[in-house]
């Protein structure tokens, strides 16, 4: 191979939750792997008009490529392909898509060009889906934020902490929550959610 290294090896991916798929009574706990997560930061521009133009340009880029519109903090937009854009702090979003590139930030940069700074976060997060009738009750044991359907629906995203772990929470469906937590503490993360579910079923 033209760009090969001397060592005749390739590296295979290992995911922290190791393909977890656990059904506890009627509620399923499953690891979500192989997503591209890229943070998108809006350049800070002092002039109001210029700032608005930059934001509009970024939104145009994202709309044309993903069909996603920029959201306010705490809000989430999604498309039929299940890509989503999570508004996490002023001027910062996470774009979550299916695996598209080995270097998703580099790939996204070609889309957003100079309208945003991008950073790959795909490997930073362990992701769990908890789906089923006991999902909300389980999360009530660890999540201090109001996650009732009236407070968190598919248009919302929440950043919070659970059992000392930073967690991003979204609710793509009424009975399905998706949780992102730092990858290094994935085992503790899995344990806390699993115990919560076992405690409520």
């Amino acid at each position, binding site marked *: *191979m*033209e*760009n*090969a*290294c*001397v*060592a005749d*090896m*390739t*590296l*295979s*991916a*290992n*995911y*922290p939750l190791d393909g977890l798929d656990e059904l506890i009574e009627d509620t399923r706990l499953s690891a979500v792997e192989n997503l591209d997560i890229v*943070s998108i*930061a809006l*350049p*800070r*521009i*002092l002039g109001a008009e210029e700032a608005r133009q930059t934001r509009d340009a970024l939104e145009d880029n994202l709309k044309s490529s993903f069909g996603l519109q920029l959201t306010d903090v705490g809000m989430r937009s999604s498309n039929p392909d299940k890509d989503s854009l999570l508004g996490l702090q002023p*001027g*910062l979003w996470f774009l979550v898509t299916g695996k598209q590139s*080995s*270097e998703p930030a580099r790939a996204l940069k070609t889309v957003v060009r100079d309208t945003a*700074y991008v*950073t*790959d*976060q*795909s*490997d*930073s*997060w362990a992701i769990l889906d908890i789906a089923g009738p006991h999902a909300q009750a389980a999360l*009530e*044991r*660890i*999540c*201090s*934020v*109001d996650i*009732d359907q*009236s*407070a968190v629906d598919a248009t919302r995203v929440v950043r919070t902490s659970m*059992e*000392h*772990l930073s967690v991003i929470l979204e609710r793509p469906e009424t009975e399905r929550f998706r949780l992102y937590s*730092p*990858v*290094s*503490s*994935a*085992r*503790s*993360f899995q*344990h*806390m959610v699993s*115990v*919560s579910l*076992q*405690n409520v079923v």
Partner: protein
Amino acid sequence: MNAPSSMTGAGRIGKGLLDPGKTISFQFNGRHYSGLQGDTLASALLANDQRLLGRSFKYHRPRGIFSAGAEEPNALLELGRGAYKEPNTRATVTELHEGLEAHSQNHRGPLSFDVMAINDYLSSFLSAGFYYKTFMWPKAFWEKLYEPVIRAAAGLGSLSGEADPDTYDKGFLHTDLLIIGAGPAGLAAALTAGRAGLRVILADDDFLPGGRLNAEQMQVDGMPGSQWAAASYAELLSMPHVRCLLRTSVYGAFDHGIYGALQRCTDHLADKTGRRPRQILWRIYARQTILSAGATERSIAFGNNDRPGIMLAGAVRTYLNRFGVAPGKQVIVFTNNDDGWRTAADLSRAGVAPAAIIDTRSIPEPMHLPGVQVLMGARITTTRGRLALRSVTLQDGQSIPCDCLAVSGGWSPNVHLTCHQRGRPVWREDIAAFVPGTDLPSGMRVIGAAGGSLGLSASLTEGHQAAVELIKHAGRHQTTSPAPVAEQESARITAFWQVPESRGRAWVDLQNDVTTKDIALSFREGFRSVEHLKRYTTLGMATDQGKTSNVLGLAVLAQLGGKRIEDTGTTIFRPPYTPIAIGALAGRSRGKHFRPVRQTPSHRWAMENGGDMVESGLWLRAQWYSQAGETHWRQSVDREVQQTRRTVGICDVTTLGKIDIQGRDAAEFLDRVYANTFSTLAIGKVRYGLMLREDGFVMDDGTTARLGETHFLMTTTTANAVSVFRHLEFCRQCLWPDMDVHLISATEQWAQYAIAGPQSRALLEGVVDAPFDISNDAFPFMACAELTVFNGTPARLFRISFSGEMAYELAVPTRYGHALMEALMEHGKAFDAVAYGLEALGVMRVEKGHAAGNELNGQTTAGNLGLGRMVSTKKDCIGAVLSRRSAMNASDAIQLMGFVPEDKSQTLRAGAHFLLPDAPETTESDLGWMSSVAYSPTLGSHIGLGFIRNGSNRLGERIRAYDPVRGGSIFVQVVSPHFVDPDGERLRG
């Protein structure tokens, strides 16, 4: 009433609200009894005519059941056995279940013959505060005799001494409306709010909703109150937005509408071995709160008012109406209010003709009770009966036989939760009780008996009306349903606190054995504030927190001082309202789950390859990798160091903090946060950076790589990863909000490995994908690049060194970390590669003279570290100005130096202080301290780094390393801190 179940005791005269077909077996003090499902332990014991349940705290007086709720001061029992044993459990709120085992507590010998009852005869010597006045001499007896004896005698129940086998959980709930108490007022409010669609949480301590409705004979909406409660509760259960929490005590009101609640999940189950937690500690966030916690009846102080068989009048009604149990066959009612008469009426209705009703008031009889002896304006002066009540004696000497005395001194609203944020209750003379003041916790309103409305009709109306107002407040559609209708019973009262003609001690606080004499003694000795009274006498302490005694106690105090009760005041109520097990407070945060654990992606590889793991903050890191035949950690570490310096070593450095910094002003931003300059750093280069705090002391160090014109990657020490990120965010958001800088942590994104040693380049040449060139010319010391490795995996390579060897740090996306470690070790076999751990890392950095956590301790300056010239004078940065303070740049300031023992066989110890050879061991003589030590296999002796005054001028000097804590004092020589490759030839090679 229906016929009693003979299976459940002679005291059972009806079924009350229980199902007579569901009997339950239980044990008390080893004897087998039967009760009914729905009984409390107290009601079942009463049904079985078991009146004597325990011994009092100090005098070991026989005690029985006094109340029917959470306020119980007497009937405290030990439940369960072995590790499950729980002492001081109130029988009045313990739900009976199959197989329940209970034991009486606080007695030596049988319950009926407690040898410690001798204390009762010694009561003259055991008055309030006796321990403050006695045991003063001989002085030496205190620790060896008095204290052990007192400790052995004190306390009530005993712990098992075993680890708690139960599991506990916690949780968070949010609601529009929290209703505390599912009595008539609470149910009325919940119904109205629930029907309007509000999110409601209804919590009640009891396992049966309804509160006093289950204990009374009154009607609501034309049906028995208990039926109305059951129907209302069933409707609430059908509402998806209403959460009903029975067996749940709301124990505290905290800031911003937050309440603590304890839900008991399995205490009432026969089989507690399931996986469900025993209890859940809820934190409830409520927009609005309704406190409908009811009221607690109180006693009257008269001679020997503590015998088994003497109980609160309302409790007698509860046992009669709810549990179908007659607490006695000859019951006398002693009251100062109309409510006491209802006990007599209910007794008559149930066929237990009261022996007499004694009313302290000289007024016309409130109701006509045929066949009942009525004594108006009368008082009980004493009682008789050793283990159970036999008679009462009146002020005129008349003695009336009885086996149960129902006492009502009035009702005290349960204002506790209104006071948890320093709210002060106010006195209402018409009901002779404290009611909530105006300074309530945010969003709280108080209704029903808790607010002083002691009648049923008023409670129902207030509950309904409060909900209507909240619905309006929430902008919801208002309900058209009317308030439930009921009669308003009379609650007239004439305050009467103590019988002046009492013969014998008159108890105020049954749980703490506090009498009116104790209060008088406290008053005489100057403890006249209620807070002082409480601490001097222990009035109102322990599990019941004085629920039946506080008001009575302060009324007695007020009378002594000739004050009004409102001028005497109350003590401060604090959480918890009812006892909470420590296990519940800990929840699931026990043992290894006390806090999260962080693992690097190659954690599994480390475990499979002899890694000995150590906690480093939250991280688990390999200290060293043991190999076969190695019996001591030093063997492993020495091998790793030597092999790394000889060939190549690989170390997991994933834990280093990594911060991605982008923006047009990123370079300028770094200039401001680092002491040295970064705007001049070329793309593809790395620079060591020193970060100062605002006060000029060193905050952290690390390297920062420039990946692009507007893109940098900063590394921090593992320990300071979070604090540095927080600091940078503060700078970005607060100090320089106009800068175009964006930060995001990349610590988790990249798995990073140091590849160090003379063969490191050779190893990596087979790892990085062509055509990338890592020759010394193409990729020199302090270069960096984004590239691919192992046939296509994206990576970042930095040529930096912490070991002093030629070294690189290679980062790949975390998912490839495990595979990279495996591949590096496999590919490294040809180069005799070795994995090295944290200890070898530490040894090599000491050998090289690099500062680390021990040196960056927040009290050292750049000058102290020998890095003073890094603080640029050409630009400003955080900490620059204050780092120039004269004291921080004194000529004799401490400096980081190296140290070797004079006798090379000796061991150095971090923490030792430096003294001149003949200097006295005083603070004034202190020259500095040893900060880091290691055994250097490279040099064959211990070496150390440390700070010593005027260090650079002491090279070669002989000084003493003084270690008084661990003993020993050795002589060391001051040397350069750079033990290995001082000129840096290896790392640039």
